[in-house]
């Protein structure tokens, strides 16, 4: 197995009470697999990605990449954060070039940066500061940055969240193309069920409080999937139901809590 | 401000006189006068007397200029310097003289003035009384400070640090007032090369004087005269009862500074200091001329208006 997530537990301590965010997460991911993670807001998706990236220490359990234990962040696992995480003191171009600095000449890095900025439709904004971009544009810069790094594993936390459907659809296309070409392993957090079905080999549906894996679904619809609307709809229906019961659980808990407090 | 400027004879308002001095052995006349109540005796019950002590001449002079003190004891250096820069100050009387000596460290191997060339000497300040005395004295030997093209290296520092500097070889020579000269001899075996009787102006130049502002002298002649008188009584007491005077001095200094001076050192220092109200106009002018020669002052000051000896008996 390429990427192994073994018995991950994560607790946070707030106001002296520990709350379990992730509970016994186990996942084996093959090289080149495109895995989506779906789940209600606050179920621990970002936390899981952060643990895989090596940015957050799990309370117990471990992550193995190619059999090697992950203890710290590294260039082999590129991450697109939920917030764009651009460096405000660098221009758009410099932000994208930042991870490339060391492995190539400046000219090459610049060319590569421009290549990916074009893919996210931002050639026009290379010299802008991040704060001069709209929310969606910032997110696209972050995507371009992660793609240009060309890591073995790509961790993407709602990368297309702030984009309109048309731009999003273009970027689905670009991402799929890159994935097919380079056979990257992708862990993709999203809120859109249709997006996850459109793109991934496998969908992990998570439940909340604490975060657990509800189902691990292999998507066996042939690509391009736009051509198989029925199969897509059926799967969408299934996932929707799964998540709906989760959210009903949350609402019930919420009501109980509100009544008791 | 000071209340004493209201000299209307109504007697209803309480008059206040503020006297300044330093916690310094040269200032014994002020301490004795205070301790023995001479000021009260002269100025009378209607006048409230306050005392202010100062750590250095700069603060004293500023306080005098602003009217925060009415009169007090201070070294002649700050007085002359401030006078040349336009301060309204009058020298009324002397308080003590002598006491400055040139001492050499054990390490330096200096035995006489001939060995001074190329050495480093230290004084409390650039162009201070002791500096001028030493450099004037050395002029006769053709030795001068690097500042005016000579070979002697000059540094400045607080006399309390000279012992360390002698020990660590940082400086070779010092021109210091008492009790530091005696203390250096006692503490680190320093050698007195030029004693206070030989150094320029050693006997004639007062090292502590009684001053007031010109305005005060004009407006309150009566009070000033009484202050001078009280000091003269104190000096007379010191001459008659040296041992008691020494003890008053040691105690007063300890009261103010919490530091106790060694009795041995005081005994030794006392020998080199001469308490007197005399002040010689000519010497002061000569001393100033030396300052000009040594390039501490840019132009020759005229001290005719600085000294007012009418109050000395």
């Amino acid at each position: 197995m390429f990427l192994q997530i073994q018995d991950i537990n994560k607790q946070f301590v707030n106001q002296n009470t520990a709350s379990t965010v992730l509970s016994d997460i186990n996942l084996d991911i093959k090289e080149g697999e495109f895995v989506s993670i779906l789940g209600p807001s606050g179920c621990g998706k970002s936390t899981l990605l952060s643990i895989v990236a090596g940015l957050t220490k799990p309370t117990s359990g471990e992550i193995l990449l190619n059999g090697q234990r992950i203890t710290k962040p590294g260039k082999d696992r590129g991450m697109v954060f939920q917030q764009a995480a651009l460096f405000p003191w660098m221009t758009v171009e410099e932000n994208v070039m930042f991870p490339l600095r060391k492995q190539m000449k400046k000219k090459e890095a610049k060319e590569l940066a421009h290549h990916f900025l074009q893919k996210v439709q931002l050639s026009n904004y290379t010299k802008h500061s991040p704060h001069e971009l709209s929310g969606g544009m910032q997110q696209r810069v972050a995507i371009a940055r992660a793609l240009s790094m060309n890591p073995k594993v790509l961790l993407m936390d709602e990368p297309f969240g702030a984009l309109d459907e048309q731009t999003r659809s273009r970027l689905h296309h670009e991402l799929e193309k890159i994935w097919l070409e380079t056979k990257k392993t992708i862990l993709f957090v999203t809120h859109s069920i249709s997006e996850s079905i459109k793109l991934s080999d496998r969908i992990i549906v998570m439940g909340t409080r604490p975060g657990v894996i509800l189902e691990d679904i292999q998507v066996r619809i042939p690509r391009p999937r736009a051509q198989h609307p029925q199969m897509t709809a059926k799967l969408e229906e299934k996932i929707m139901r799964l998540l709906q019961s989760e959210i009903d659980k949350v609402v019930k808990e919420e009501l109980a809590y509100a009544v008791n407090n | 401000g000071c209340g004493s400027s209201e000299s209307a004879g109504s007697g209803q308002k309480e008059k206040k006189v503020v006297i300044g001095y330093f916690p310094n052995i040269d200032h014994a006349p002020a301490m004795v006068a205070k301790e023995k109540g001479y000021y009260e005796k002269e100025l009378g019950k209607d006048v409230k007397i306050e005392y202010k002590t100062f750590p250095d001449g700069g603060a004293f002079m500023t306080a005098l200029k602003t009217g925060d003190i009415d009169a007090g004891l201070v070294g002649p250096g700050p007085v002359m310097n401030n006078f040349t820069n336009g301060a309204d100050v009058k020298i009324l009387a002397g308080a003590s003289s002598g006491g400055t000596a040139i001492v050499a460290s054990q390490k330096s191997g200096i035995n006489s003035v001939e060995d001074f060339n190329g050495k480093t000497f230290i004084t409390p300040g650039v162009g201070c009384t002791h500096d001028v005395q030493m450099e004037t004295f050395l002029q006769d030997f053709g030795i001068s400070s690097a500042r005016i093209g000579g070979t002697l290296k000059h540094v400045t520092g607080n006399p309390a640090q000279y012992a360390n500097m002698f020990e660590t070889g940082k400086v070779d020579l010092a021109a210091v007032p008492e009790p530091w000269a005696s203390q250096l001899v006692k503490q680190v075996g320093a050698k007195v090369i030029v004693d206070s009787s030989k150094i320029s102006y050693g006997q004639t130049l007062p090292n502590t004087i009684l001053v007031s502002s010109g305005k005060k002298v004009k407006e309150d002649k009566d009070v000033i005269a009484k202050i001078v008188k009280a000091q003269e009584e104190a000096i007379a007491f010191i001459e008659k009862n040296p041992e008691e005077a020494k003890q008053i001095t040691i105690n007063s200094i300890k009261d103010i500074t919490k530091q106790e001076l060694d009795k041995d050192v005081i005994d030794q220092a006392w020998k080199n200091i001469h308490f007197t109200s005399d002040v010689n106009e000519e010497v002061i002018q000569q001393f100033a001329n030396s300052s000009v020669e040594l390039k501490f002052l840019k132009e020759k000051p005229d001290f005719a208006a600085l000294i007012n000896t009418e109050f000395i008996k």
Partner: protein
Amino acid sequence: MQSTIKRIIFFVLILIAWQGTVRILGVSPALMPAPTDVLDELAKGFADKTLIYDIIASFRRLAIGLAIAIIIGVGLGILLAKNKTADETLGTLILALQSVPSIVWLPIAIMWFGLNEKAVTFIVILGATLVMTINMRIGIKNVSPLYIKAAQTMGSRGWDLFIKIIFPASIPYAVTGIRLGWAFAWRALMAGEILSAGPGLGYTLKFASDFGNMKLVIGIMIIIGVIGTIVDILFFQRVEKNVLRRWGLETNN
């Protein structure tokens, strides 16, 4: 608790190293006394209560001066951050005035206030105001416009906006300003107390230094250090830890 132990070990180690150096090199106590000598001197001072009076007097002056300095510093910091003209004129003047050492301010303080507590307080205020001003100024300039905008849409304006948003958002800078102000207020106090007639640590320090009493000089330094440490632990570190934790700036994950 653990950090207290670390601290104690650290300072004990320093004391041992110091005692060792002094004893082995045989440095003259007039140059550098051993910790035991310093302790003796301190014990004497505390026994006859003189040092206690000094501490109380100095602490009073410091508290008053620092409090005023903080108020002025915050006010000026806001003014400079918000008003470009003030920043370019008054700001420059303040920076220039602050380069002037306390010695030079002494005569001016006497001139304006006379030889009294006011003059000492003035010197302390001068010493601590700049750091407060400059840190407050940049703190306010660095408040994220998003917070200000959000608060404005919630009807917060003027004084309320400042107290509830701008000030809390610049707390990290303000604490730094106070911390620095504290250190510089001590310095200024030591210089300024020359103007006082005692008691006071600066007054005692000055004469100890003039009389070459290194034991007492170092003893006073230690007193200042200990007071500083206590205040730092009780106040600054707490506020800072609180802020860092709340804002999620702690780096332990």
